[in-house]
Every structure is written in C-alpha cells, then in structure tokens.
C-alpha cells in the first residue's frame, strides 16, 4: 500500500517508503533493491506522485506495493507492455518497471525484446535470482546448466539467457548490472538509469535465500567486480558486449553500455511532438476534422 504524505522540502528516501512492510522472506535480496530504489527516487528530486512503478507477478513484482509511488501490479510477464502504455499516455511521468527473471526474461520475453528496440524511456529493474521464487523454486531462464530445482531435480539441461548481451544487441540504450548486496552502487545505477533518456535495464543479482542454494549472497560477494574500476568505457559497444559475456570467478557489475544518441519512443513519436501528455489533452474530433474525413469518403 502506498500513501500520501505532505511533502514540504525536497523528497528524501523516507518519502518513498511505503506503509506496508514487505512480506519477503527475511534476508531476501529484494529488500536491498527496494532500499536502493527509494534512495534513487529521492536523488532524482521528483515527488512521489510523479513516479509510476509497474510490475508483473512474482516475489520481486510485489515491490510496487512497498514503495510510495503510483503503482500497478499487473499480470505475470506484462509489466513492460503496461509500462509502455503508461509512459506514452503521460510522458511527463517517471516510469519504473520491476519484476523477476521469470517474469521479464521468460513469460515476458517478447515484450522485453520489443520494448528495448523501441527505446521506451523506462527504468526496468529485474531482480534476477535465477529461480522462480513465488512458485516455490522452479528453474528459471537464467538458471545455470546443471542447476537442481523442483522442476529440474536431476539438474537443468538448458542453457541460460544472457540478458545483458541481449539488451545490448537489441537496442537498450542503458544496460547495467547491480547486486542487491551493494545498495549504494545499485542506487547510483538506478538513479543514472532514470536520468537516462531511453530504455534502461538494470539486471540485479537479488538472491532468493529460500530456493536458490547456488547463487547466494556469499557466491556473489566472492565473484562480483565493478566495471568502473576497470576503466571500461560504456559507450564502447564491443567492449560492452565482451564484458556482458563474462561469467565465472569474476562477474562484472556496473554500467556496461550507454548510448545517448538514440531518440526515445516518446521523442520519436510525432503525435507527442506538441500538446503535452496525451492523458491531459481534450478528447474527440472537431466538426472540421470530421468533415475532412467525410470528404475523403465521398
């Protein structure tokens, strides 16, 4: 649940804290993601009612209920389609989509690809725990080969998707990876993702402490590195791809790719050229417009 709070000065992270206590398992990675998002929203300096957080279904998708913004808790896999509709209807709003790896890369995979190629101006946060948490621990599109889950008791034989590489080749214009164990770093990535005009993906390692015994906090603490410390240039597409393929003893986090050259969908769409957000325009057809249409049919 979200609530209204009188906001006098510039909003702080507290202003984005919802009234409802998250019902995630104590220790779940998603807490860190929520915390980071509160910080990032505050840093952006907009008021809570100027944000809309849209999610699908999953443990991670419960997030809109816990943050003090407008929220939509939609169907499993559909957050990006709904969020695109919201953004195009009112491009003055800051729109954030959140969800899980199953939600975004599995059932919502088609929307994922096409929202990126359209460069819709959204921040998309995927809490990637390499498992289906809410449905009590089945294999996910990011589970590694060999991973034992309730639906792959003998080990998964399917290879995982690489969301970052996919995003870079598909047209996302801001591609990053964060770790829920490093809230400050993650908040900075989120803030910059919202500042960025265009589609921003942040794939976040957000461990499911209940159902994923492979990709734990300890595992990530040992393996994650920061691209910022390597001198990586995020405008270098080839280097971005190369880093996105890295997996093993060292797994990079940070900003992989950043392209500011492409217009966003709302910038490219002539209908939004002038007149402000669609949602606030006058509705209907004038007599003159109608007459012009009829003339073409006579």
């Amino acid at each position: 649940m979200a609530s209204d709070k009188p906001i006098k000065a510039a909003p702080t992270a507290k202003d984005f804290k919802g009234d409802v206590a998250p019902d995630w398992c104590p220790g779940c990675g998603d807490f860190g993601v929520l915390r980071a998002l509160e910080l990032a929203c505050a840093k952006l300096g907009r008021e809570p009612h100027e944000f809309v957080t849209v999610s699908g279904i999953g443990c991670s998708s419960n997030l809109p209920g816990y943050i003090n913004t407008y929220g939509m808790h939609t169907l499993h896999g559909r957050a990006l389609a709904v969020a695109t509709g919201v953004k195009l209807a009112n491009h003055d709003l800051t729109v954030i989509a959140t969800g899980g790896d199953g939600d975004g890369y599995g059932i919502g995979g088609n929307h994922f690809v096409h929202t990126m190629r359209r460069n819709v101006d959204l921040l998309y946060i995927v809490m990637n725990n390499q498992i289906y948490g809410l449905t009590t621990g089945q294999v996910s599109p990011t589970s590694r080969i060999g991973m034992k889950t309730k639906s792959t008791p003998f080990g998964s034989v399917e290879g995982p998707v690489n969301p970052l590489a996919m995003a870079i080749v598909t047209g996302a214009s801001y591609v990053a990876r964060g770790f829920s164990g490093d809230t400050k770093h993650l908040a900075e990535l989120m803030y910059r993702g919202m500042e960025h005009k265009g589609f921003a993906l942040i794939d976040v390692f957000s461990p499911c402490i209940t159902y994923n015994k492979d990709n734990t906090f300890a595992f990530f603490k040992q393996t994650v590195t920061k691209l910022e410390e390597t001198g990586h240039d995020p405008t270098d597409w080839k280097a971005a791809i190369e880093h996105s393929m890295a997996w093993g003893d060292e797994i990079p986090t940070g900003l992989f790719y950043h392209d500011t050259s492409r217009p966003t969908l709302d910038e490219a769409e002539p209908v939004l050229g002038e007149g402000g957000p669609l949602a606030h325009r006058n509705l209907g057809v004038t007599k003159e417009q109608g007459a012009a249409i009829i003339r073409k049919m006579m």
Partner: protein
Amino acid sequence: MAKFDFAIAIGGAAGQGIATPGNILARICARRGLQFFSYNSYQSIIRGGHIFLTTRISTEPVTSHGDKIDLLFCLNQDTMDRHLQHVAPGGTAIFNSDTIKPGDASDGLQLCPMPVKELSNNNRNKLVQNTVALAGVLHLLGLEFKLLEEILTLQFKRKGQAVVDENVDVARAAYEYSVENFVPFSTPLPQKDKPLAQVGGNEALAMGGAAAGVNFYCAYPMSPSTGVLHWMAENANDMGIMVRQVEDEIGVINMVIGAAHAGCRAMCATSGGGFALMTEAVGSAGMMEIPMVAINVQRAGPSTGVPTKTEQGDLWQMLGASQGDFPKIIVAVTSILDCFNTIPELFNLVDKFQCPGLVITDLSVSEGYATVDPDDINWEQPIDRGELITEANDTGEKYLRYKFTESGISPRAIPGTPEHLHVVATDEHDEDGGLISDEFTNPHIRRAMVEKRQRKMEAVVSLIDPPELEGPENAEVTLIGWGTTKGVIEEAASLLTQEGIPTNQLAIKWIVPLHVEEITQALSKAKRTIIVENNFTGQFARYLRGETGFDADGHIRKYDGEPFMPHHIVDGVKEQVAGKTDLYVPYQEIVV
C-alpha cells in the same frame, strides 16, 4: 421513383485489380445519392485465387448484398465459369472476349464480349481489360462517357497527360463499341439529390473510436480487423491518436490497459485468435477496474480457421473471456453505421463503470462497405469520463482507490495526480489497493470486493436500449438474431411478409448485460420463433436459454464461411412453417 434494386458483381483473381472498377462504380453511385452495400468474398492470398465483389445498389437503404446478380463483370474465365449461372433473368455478363470463352447463357441473358486487344490497340498492360469492361458497364448502366473521362483523368493525372490520353482513348473506343453492339439496361442508374459517403465497417469502428475520443490505439495485424489499424495509422497524426503496432496481442491489450490507467481513452481490435491471447488481460482490466475497449472481429474458426470468411462463432469465447467472475460489457454491433455510433456509447459506459468493454462483430460487416448519409455521422459525440480524478483536491480524507460505495463505483485517480497515490493490483485487494492475497486472505474483504465490482453492473442495463420487435405486430414468425445479421434478417422478414408469411425480428445488440425482462416480454406473444445465427452450435440460442429460459421453436444456422443471403433465411422459414424441420442449414450457391 420506383425502387431501384440492382447488383453488380466483379470477379477475378487476386492481383487482377478488381478493387479499381469496384471503387469507381461505388463512388459513382454514392455521388449520385444511391445507396449500396458491398461484400467482397475473397481468400487469404495476394496473387491468384478467386475474388468476387458484389455491390448491391438501390434508391432505398440496402442492408445486405442481396440474392441476385444483374451485371456480371468477368476479369477471368473462372468468374465466367462459376458465376454466369447466378446472373438473374434479364441480366448481363461483360467480359474480355480475347481471353474468356462465354458460357451457356440462359434465355434473356445478354452476353457482352469486349475485344480488348482491338479496342486498346494491343495495349499490353493487363489492367487495360478493366478499363475496357468498365467503359462497357457505364454504357450499359445508361451513364454518359464524360463521367468516365473525368474519373480516368483524375486517376492517371499523376502519371502525365500521355497516360491520361491513352486511357481515355481506350475507354472511349470501348464505350462506343458497347453503344454499337449491346443493349443497355432498361432502367438507367437513377440520380438522387444528396451525395452519400461510402464507409467500410472497420473504418466505421475506427471513426467511432476517434469520435469517442480514443487517443491510444494498438493492434497486431489480423484479418478481418486490420482495417481498423490502417485507418487509425493513416489518421493518427491529424487526430492526435497514438497508434502502435505491438509485438503480439498480449502486448496490445496490456499496453492499452497501461494507457487507459494513465488517463487515455484506449482501444484495440483483433480477431478470435488474437482475442484468445488477450483474454487474461481482459480480466486484469476487470480486477484493476480500468476502462478500455477491445473489439473482436470474428472470422470463421476455430484456430487459424478461415481468415477471410465470416462466422459468429466466438460468442462463448467473449462471454468466458478471462478466468473468474467480474463485470464486463459486451455489445454486438448490428450495421456499419452502428459500428460508428456504438463505440462512443460504449466508452461512456466503461468509463462510468470502470470495466472492460468488448465489441463483437464479424467480417460480413467489418469488410463490407455501405453508403451513409454524412449527416447521420455525428462527430460531436457526448464524452462522459465518469468519476475521474485528475487534480489534487483537499478533501482531507485518505484516498481509497477501491472505496466501497453503494453504486460499486469508486472514483478513479490517474497517476500523476497529487495526494492520490495508490497501487492498482491484479491480485485481490483491499479498498486502498493493498493485496489481500498474500499474507492474510481475508474472506470478508474478498466477498465485499467481489460484490462491489458486480454491483456496478446493476445500473448498466437501464442505460442501454432494449431490443424491440421490428415488423408486423401479429407476425406468424418472429426471427431472432444478434449483431451483424440484423440487416439480412430485416430483408428476409419483409420478403416473407410480402409472400404471405407475416414475419418480424427481434435483433439483439447488447449481449452483456442482456435485457432479460424486455426480451422475455417481447417473445412471450410470439407465435413461432426462429433463431438465425452464423455458427454450428447455436451459440446465441444457448446463451438466450441460459439467461432467460427461453427456447426457440426452430433454428437457421450457417457455418460455411459466407454470410446469409436473404433467400437463405426465407427458405429456412418456409421449410419450418411447412413443418419439415426445426433446424435449417442453407446451401451456399455462390462458391468463391
């Protein structure tokens, strides 16, 4: 003026350019103030196959493509072979005698062979035969050559004077040839004073959307609904409508829901297969209480089915669209003009009641074209957005998106509005939008929420027009139809009445909610009731029985992909009156 009733059918293969002479003839009629309805029978093919465009012209309103063909315009042998037999006595067939062999014409039927090569100086353009035949047709219809000259000049202007002259010369030679060799129809094409507009069903749905204030439209192309997308795309910039072709129909409806929630009037259209993909989201609009409109233009199913043929086979799909109980409004539009008028009315209802609105129609109307009096198209439709909050208001109370109210309607704030922060959820929720599905599933809140949503529907039925019996009061036969069959049933009923079987019709448009009382009342005095529908299982008959307990005496059903022609219904009624059957399935004579 005596009633003029004349049908021209043009047949050929896809790619032979049937549309051009078809459009020219339609435009001539509309400009003369004549009414028409045209039905194009075709297949899912870009080149080849067989296309058959029937345009029925009259001085009076035309509600179906009728029973007969007066003038057959053959662009290939196939058309001659298939359709010469369908030409009415006194009719005419015109064709290219270089490539088409005439069939055996029955007595009183005029064959008009046109030597295209000779008349066109051996012009090699394959489309020249259309111009030649069209010139002949104009003569046969008693029209002056000048008219064609003007049309051809307009059509070829962009290609330069030489091309214009070439075409006009060919047309003139053909016209003169026809004057010398053939007898024109005894009644020339009449002229009325008021020019009419020609409107397609899909166009009318789109135009109705525009008039309703739709400013967000999404689709994934699917016959026979794609015309709505084309119109929207064409007019998007002028009208300020956001039009998007989305990756699939799931994305389509979810995008529409997002835009609708943010404050747009948002709509989408598809056919049954696409609608199947949309169904989960229909329920989400119901649960989140977001008003939006989805149109299902039925094709013959199931599965991919027959993409270019018609059927009324998706009723139960629409009724059952999405899991769970929740209110939605379903309307079956009855004609092309009704497409235009219904969309604004439906948007006002869904905005008021904050629920999904579904439109069910089919190819027979969506891809049909008809004339409409421009004065009957009211662009300035009333727009009522219901209880919508777009600005901060200091009531001092905490805003509850799903507040329990007597009417069941809770004022709806759009994102961006200060002091109204809330979450909408597809999970069951409390008044403030907080989930009740996770930690504590509260049965009392659940019950109250279910009842709140359903309560909204109680008022809907009083705001929409009930169906009324049309035709003679003490009819022997009452025909019951739903949606697009209204026009053809109306014609069949009047033919039956003329032939001594007084027949009236109860045409049902609003499917959910259904006017149970009014329908029961209207049918209580009917002597013999027959339900007419374009499907195998009698989907509407079963629905009507379920809602009202009413069982009809008989049924006329068609499921071959082609729409009813009036005589199909007339014959079916006669068989039933004679006691031969209570289920009549007409035979489709015209095979395309």
